[in-house]
């Protein structure tokens, strides 16, 4: 499987982008040329290439390259924790829903339908307005609302797997339901789930930045965030400061592109039918 991924140039490009993203997040203190929060009002809105500021500075004279590198930390933190929260909810619910069927299944799936019948951003805006903006709430809301994506995928896999011979055989020899679910069905249900979780990382990164952009994420101002940088950049757009918004925007787009490239390739490798 690894070999087939490495043979796919799109997958390799995606992996390289993601590697750079993760390394930037992990090694930010060593990579960043300056303190991302240090203000220098004498060097406000310096264009890219200005002395000491490869990508220029923002309205407060903060170094954009450094903020970009540190911003990767927030995106990585929010996306990974939110996906884990979503998986922790959606995976068991999908397993049970698909295996048990009946009323529980009906209830959970209708609940998912209702949730998906709201434009995602409206749902998140409304919940954040009620809870009050904070980084914890942002992670919780993005994580909890994504349960339905995972639950649907797992349920779909379980529905088709549970009637197959290996599952029937396990039941026939008296395996307990948890054992059938976890030992027999879950491993086969994992590949599509991994693909979806990968693509969800991108959706969460975009959503968190959207909330920050709209001023609803509650990320403290001292933590550099790509969405907040975009919002800052929007305000200086009209004074010619194109670089303030452009670099964080390119960073988000690149990471999403990397995830999409990698996710698509992963889907191809993991799904034998698409070979």
């Amino acid at each position, binding site marked *: 499987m690894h070999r087939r991924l490495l043979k796919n140039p799109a997958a390799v490009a995606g992996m390289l982008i993601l590697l750079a993203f993760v390394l930037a997040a992990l090694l930010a203190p060593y990579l960043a040329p300056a303190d991302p929060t240090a203000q220098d009002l004498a060097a406000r809105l310096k264009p890219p290439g200005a002395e000491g500021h490869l990508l220029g500075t923002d309205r407060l004279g903060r170094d954009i390259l450094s903020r970009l590198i540190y911003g990767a930390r927030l995106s990585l933190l929010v996306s990974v924790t939110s996906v884990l929260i979503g998986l922790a909810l959606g995976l068991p619910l999908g397993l049970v829903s698909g295996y048990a069927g009946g009323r529980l299944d009906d209830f959970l799936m209708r609940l998912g339908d209702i949730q998906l019948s709201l*434009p*995602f*951003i409206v749902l998140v805006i409304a919940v954040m*307005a009620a809870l009050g903006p904070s980084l914890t709430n942002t992670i919780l809301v993005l994580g909890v609302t994504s349960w339905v994506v995972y639950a649907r995928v797992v349920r779909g896999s379980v529905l088709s797997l549970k009637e197959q011979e290996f599952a029937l055989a396990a039941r026939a020899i008296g395996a307990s339901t948890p054992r059938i679910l976890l030992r027999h069905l879950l491993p086969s249900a994992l590949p599509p789930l991994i693909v979806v979780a990968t693509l969800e990382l991108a959706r969460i990164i975009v959503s968190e930045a959207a909330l920050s952009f709209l001023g609803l994420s509650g990320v403290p101002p001292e933590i550099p965030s790509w969405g907040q940088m*975009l919002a800052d950049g929007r305000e200086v757009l009209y004074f010619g400061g194109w670089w303030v*918004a452009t670099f964080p925007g390119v960073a988000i787009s690149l990471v999403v592109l990397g995830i999409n490239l990698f996710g698509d390739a992963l889907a191809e490798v993991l799904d034998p039918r698409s070979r």
Partner: protein
Amino acid sequence: MIAFLVRRLLLVGVVAWGAATLAFFLLYLSGDPVDLLLPLDASPEARAELRRAYGFDDPLYVQYGRYLWKLLHGDFGVSLRSQEPALGLVLGRMPATLELAGAGLLFALLLGIPAGVLAALKKGTLAELLVMTLALLGQSIPVYFLGLVLIMVFGLKLHWLPISGYGTLRHLVLPTITVGTFVTASIARLTRNGVLQELRSDYVRTARAKGLTERVVVYKHALRNAAIPVVTIVGLQLGTLLSGAVITETIFAWPGMGRFVLLAVEQGDFPVVQASVIVFALLLALVNLAVDLAYLWLDPRVRYA
């Protein structure tokens, strides 16, 4: 057919009820609903008065029942800011949102479908590579960044188009591209896959074997059937389209429901937020119903018994 319509309309009702329930419990998420309905510096007397007026001391199920009952009678609460009925305020912003989302969808269909068909018919050529690369980029650029880029290039640099406001066709151009690009890219990719799949199918081989021209095979046979998965995708993308519209409206100062709900959040006007949630859900449910009806028309196999 009638039974199908009734069932689908019932589903719209269920969605509306779900959204109303969410809107109701949102008030209690923060702990005390009074906090969301009054400014933080409100006097204890004002708080007690509101608590009495809204009946917040009643049991929750009584309050819930009362909330639904009021909704059924068109009472969505009153804006804390303007003291006008929240429903009317939200509905007043709907035409602008419909205009933007509709234009975005039209843009996506008119560009995405031909691009996808082209990519499928020219498989393996530079044209396919170009379409698929652009589609991948279109799916990767977040709507708010795309909006800013369009503003920078076509508004501030080239001065071709207005960057904010509403009213003329020229004002519609940049917001439409902003809101429509992601959906265009999705439609292009899925149209390509759908057409490729149809071109490999038995009936296309039969059509070719009996000597039909390639034009008839592609346009009369393959494309018709490829239209069905495209309609499915359009249906699935409508929520994304509306979410994109909310953000796009904010960027371009477009006077629709999305910008309105965000303003309401900023001003702490919670009844308007609640009304918006319900109206957005109803709107999406009704549009999805329309998509289902489009199936009936496209696919004679679908009978919805």
